[in-house]
């Protein structure tokens, strides 16, 4: 009988077998665990609104402690001192965790994907609903709004600007417009993307803001004086989806362009239409001739910082981002700034894209009533009015018409053109993007295309390639 026929394992063989067996068991259990680990969205619980019955009472969840994930922002800063009042009103304690904006959505993604429900409520932007909603990570707040046992009769949801309410609602079906389906977040603060300019410099030169896009290009170019470190206009240009949504998307829409159209039940990218190519070419030329030298790295703090320092003569970005630069002590140009709606489209359109910081509820929360009471309070008239009156960096812009027309207008004495600009654009302000679940991927690719055109690539060729790639991406089976 040979050794091969009668195998007697030695210690080394046994160790090897143990190792292999352990690895196999470990790997199989790992992979099984992985299967569970990928299904964070499946942990979403049913909507909790139906469980709330009886009359409305702020103290229905008394004694509860909720966790809220937030990012440091003037809105959050304005509300932090008011949390004690919320606790006094409801008996609910709020533990607010702050994560810097640069890392905020990374943290939020991880938290929501885990399905752990560590945070009951969180700050979010409207575009994120298109990603967080389909896997079931967010609680639909419409049943909560419609439940009189859970929502105060004085809440007055319709007081929130219509464009904002529509922008935070969608049914997640390809081709459906915003405003359909659930209400996934309640707008808390928002911004319109308009022009802010150095009025002192404009007055000194005896000039006024441009009313058409071609005039804006000419004006910004004329104001550019590289030798003296001054340039005409700042707007975002970094490799990020956030480059597209403020000034670019606003003017893109005003010039009659669209990002996608619905064709045969599928979305087709149209950012390569003749008018879009023409607009994009002009926009990039504006960046080249009158924008910041390092445009491809510019984010909103760079833009508003240059405006405040007197380096940039205009900024085409969020009104709420330029607002703090005009508060005494915040910048060298404080008191010198003014606002303008920006160029109208050929048809007189002041269509304006918005960003809203909203409050949403984690569907995996175990304290949904307390979370809803917090969201309801923070987006209510009283708390928002107090935030406007006491916020250290202001509260631009409140999402409620009554608060804007009341408390907020009283703060606008030293902000020439702010109110007029707001009133001119608010009726046509909402999200101008077509809602779709691949928003971040496709919109970042759009920003990359702008950078490539800025670097010298042909606009038509590059936008054709972008449109083809984005059409595939947005219709990708999910």
């Amino acid at each position, binding site marked *: 009988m040979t050794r091969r026929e009668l195998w007697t394992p030695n210690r080394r063989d046994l160790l090897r077998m143990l190792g292999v067996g352990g690895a196999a068991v470990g790997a199989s259990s790992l992979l099984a665990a992985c299967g569970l680990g990928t299904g964070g969205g499946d942990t979403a619980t049913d909507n909790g609104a139906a469980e709330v019955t009886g009359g409305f009472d702020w103290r229905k969840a008394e004694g509860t402690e909720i966790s809220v994930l937030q990012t440091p922002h003037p809105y959050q800063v304005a509300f932090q001192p008011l949390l004690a009042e919320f606790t006094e009103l409801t008996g609910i304690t709020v533990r607010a965790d702050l994560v810097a904006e640069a890392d905020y959505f990374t943290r939020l993604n991880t938290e929501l994907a885990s399905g752990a429900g560590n945070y009951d409520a969180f700050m979010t932007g409207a575009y994120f609903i298109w990603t967080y909603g389909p896997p079931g990570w967010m609680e639909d707040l419409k049943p909560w709004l419609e439940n009189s046992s859970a929502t105060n009769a004085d809440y007055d949801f319709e007081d929130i600007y219509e464009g904002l309410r529509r922008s935070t609602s969608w049914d997640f079906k390809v081709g459906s417009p915003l405003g359909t389906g659930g209400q996934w977040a309640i707008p808390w603060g928002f911004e319109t993307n308009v022009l802010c300019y150095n009025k002192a410099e404009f007055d000194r030169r005896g000039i006024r803001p441009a009313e058409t896009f071609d005039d804006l290009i000419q004006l910004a170019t004329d104001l550019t004086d*590289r030798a003296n470190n001054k340039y005409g206009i700042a707007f975002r240009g970094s490799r990020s989806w956030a480059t597209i949504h403020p000034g670019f998307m606003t003017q893109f829409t005003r010039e009659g362009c669209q990002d996608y159209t619905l064709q045969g039940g599928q979305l087709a990218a149209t950012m390569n239409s003749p008018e879009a190519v023409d607009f994009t070419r002009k926009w990039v030329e504006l960046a080249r001739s009158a924008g910041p030298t390092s445009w*491809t790295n510019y984010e909103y703090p760079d833009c508003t910082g240059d405006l405040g320092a007197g380096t940039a003569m205009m900024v085409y970005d969020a009104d709420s981002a330029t607002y703090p630069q005009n508060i005494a002590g915040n910048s060298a140009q404080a008191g010198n700034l003014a606002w303008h709606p920006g160029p109208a489209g050929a048809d007189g359109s002041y269509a304006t894209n918005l960003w809203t910081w909203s409050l949403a509820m984690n569907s995996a929360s175990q304290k949904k009533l307390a979370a809803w009471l917090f969201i309801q309070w923070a987006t209510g008239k009283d708390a928002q009015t107090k935030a406007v009156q006491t916020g250290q960096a202001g509260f631009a812009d409140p999402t409620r018409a009554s608060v804007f027309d009341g408390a907020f207008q009283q703060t606008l004495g030293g902000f020439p053109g702010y109110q007029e600009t707001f009133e001119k654009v608010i009726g046509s302000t909402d999200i101008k993007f077509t809602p779709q679940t*691949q928003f971040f991927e496709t919109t970042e690719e759009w920003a990359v295309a702008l950078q490539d055109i800025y670097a010298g690539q042909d606009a038509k060729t590059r936008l054709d390639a972008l449109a083809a790639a984005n059409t595939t991406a947005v219709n990708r089976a*999910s």
Partner: protein
Amino acid sequence: MTTAAPPRAPESARPRAPRPVPAWRRGLRPYLLSIPAVLIIVGILYPFVLGAYYAFLNYAAVVRRPSFVGLANFAEILSDPTFWASVRVTLFYAVAATVIETVLGVGIALLLNRSSLIGRVFERVLILPLMIAPVIAGVIWGLMFNPQFGVLNHVLGLGSTFDWLGEDTAIWSVILVDVWIFTPFVAILVLAGIRSLPKEPFEASAVDGASWFYMFRRLMLPMMWPYILVAVIFRFMDSLKIFDHVYVLTAGGPGDATRTLQIGAYQNSIIQLQYSQGSTYMFLLWVIVFLTARYLVSVLGKAQRRAAGSED
């Protein structure tokens, strides 16, 4: 005659014969001793196996129930020009940064290999960049690169029109930051190697009238070579996986000019929430790093044997 019997030691004071350890316990001991190592290996392998597993799914934020898709992610990514652009950027970055850091690091080590007060002070100052987190270094250099108010354009008289992070310049600027952070690492490693070299061959050569250059080329360099290679391996592996300061400075732009594989993986996984696509990027990067490491380690082994005189 009788002799008294020696007094017996009390029972408790008598040395006790060791109790025989049962055979099953003796046999179990090696397995118990190996448990910590097994746990560590599982701990290390867990994220890797998980990441590799994700590369074969269609796992993304918008996919409720991920399913097995075989090699579809690999096929998609390997046919994507953006991926290959990232491979080119990553390899260029790693080669350029490693070469520059090695040349500068060896030069600095040779200059510091003299015991002087200035040398000792410089040695300590040299490691300061290594103490700064690369993310912080990215923020600092980002401010210095700013054309409007950055110190570099001002000091170099470039006005406000030179863009350090433009399409053609960004890759060199991020390499410059890498060189600033990691050249001291190479210098210190090589310096330690130089100081451990035997003095006798150099003294004998000096007696024979050999020139400094001859001694450097024929003696010092061959003996230093293993230390240089260790530094090269560390830096090259690290550069292939570069992310932090590059992301802070450019986020991979302009266009795809500085989009390394790590940044591609981050953008897929964290920004776009396409977890499987990001995992596939990471898996392919691992393959590149693994193959390169294997090759460089074999080169190091040869160099060590040559330096020891066991191989021609």
